């Protein structure tokens, strides 16, 4: 555990950051678990409808490929495209995601991990770092997850301040083909902008997984999220489709 913590903190200390990120329709909840040697192909998508935008909502797709490098570190590379209201679809971002599982699932009262992502935003011509803890707690067949994410831009042109976002979910693990749950996403503002609006959205979700021959596994989850205040999209429909190969 000490080695894991040192590795994570060393990575963080090398990356100094600035500039806030907006909540994305394809956001998803990160889990503090890693399977060593596993290869993942993942598609994250989302559509969100803002007030007064008619049918011209925001769409986002992010393709990712990842690998469980060790029993506690998974790394993923991704590329994303976005279509903003009134614009055409464009290449939006390149990202490098890392999941560090700091505890063995179930060993302590709370499972803990660290999420770290380095992202290049083509629209803003800048880089950004997102980092934060991931928590997981099981209550029998109910699994809860919370992510607390701090995001800053990199470089002189980046906006000042650190944005604080959160993701969470609760799901009932009764049947692998259909696990009902709830997901929530939001932002609590930026340290560099006192007037930065909060945004919160939540709604029903379901999760599904099945073995698809050999050692391969197909996972899917989706959620229909509703904005809780004026700064949030009215509705967001998000999904993750994941194919795992060992």
């Amino acid at each position, binding site marked *: 555990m000490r080695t894991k913590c040192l590795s994570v903190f060393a990575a963080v200390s090398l990356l100094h950051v600035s500039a806030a990120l907006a909540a994305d329709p394809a956001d998803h909840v990160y889990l503090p678990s890693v399977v060593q040697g596993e290869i993942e192909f993942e598609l994250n998508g989302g559509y969100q409808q803002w007030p007064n935008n008619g049918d011209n909502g925001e769409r986002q797709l992010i393709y990712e490929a990842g690998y469980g490098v060790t029993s506690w570190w998974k790394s993923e590379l991704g590329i994303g495209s976005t279509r903003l209201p009134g614009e055409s679809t464009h290449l939006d971002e390149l990202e490098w995601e890392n999941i560090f599982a700091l505890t063995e*699932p*179930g060993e*302590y009262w709370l499972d803990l991990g660290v999420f770290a992502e380095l992202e290049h935003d083509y629209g803003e011509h800048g880089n950004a770092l997102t980092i934060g803890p991931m928590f997981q707690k*099981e209550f029998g067949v109910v699994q809860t997850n919370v992510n607390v994410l701090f995001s800053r831009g990199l470089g002189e042109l980046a906006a000042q301040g650190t944005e604080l976002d959160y993701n969470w979910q609760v799901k009932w*693990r009764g049947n*692998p083909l259909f696990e009902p749950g709830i997901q929530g996403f939001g932002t609590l503002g930026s340290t560099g902008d006192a007037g930065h609006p909060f945004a919160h959205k939540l709604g029903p979700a379901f999760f599904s997984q099945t073995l698809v021959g050999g050692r391969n596994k197909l996972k899917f989850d989706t959620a229909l999220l509703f904005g809780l205040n004026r700064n949030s999209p009215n509705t967001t429909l998000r999904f993750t489709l994941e194919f795992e190969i*060992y």
Partner: protein
Amino acid sequence: MRFNGLVVVLLTGGLFGGATTASAQEAEAQLVIRDHQFVPTEITVPAHAKIKLVIDNQDATAEEFESYELNREKVVAAKSKITVYVGPLEPGRYPFFGDFHKDSANGVLIAK
């Protein structure tokens, strides 16, 4: 027959220290992977206790311990051991399998 039998050792709390609950009861069970099979195929553990499951892979190839019911998935390298923590569990049967040898590596953890 060192590894054929189930070894369950009840330990009192305070094992982990730190943020863990000092009064939590914990049981330890051992499981062997040999010839792509789990030995024993059934393990009985106490319900309502945290279980420390030590899995010893004696084969020359890797295996993956997996159980949807236990919400665990972990690779065991050849000739090595891992520890998997589960529970506290309600009384019942919790199947597990070896993802790399599903035809032969199957077992069930029984909490009672």
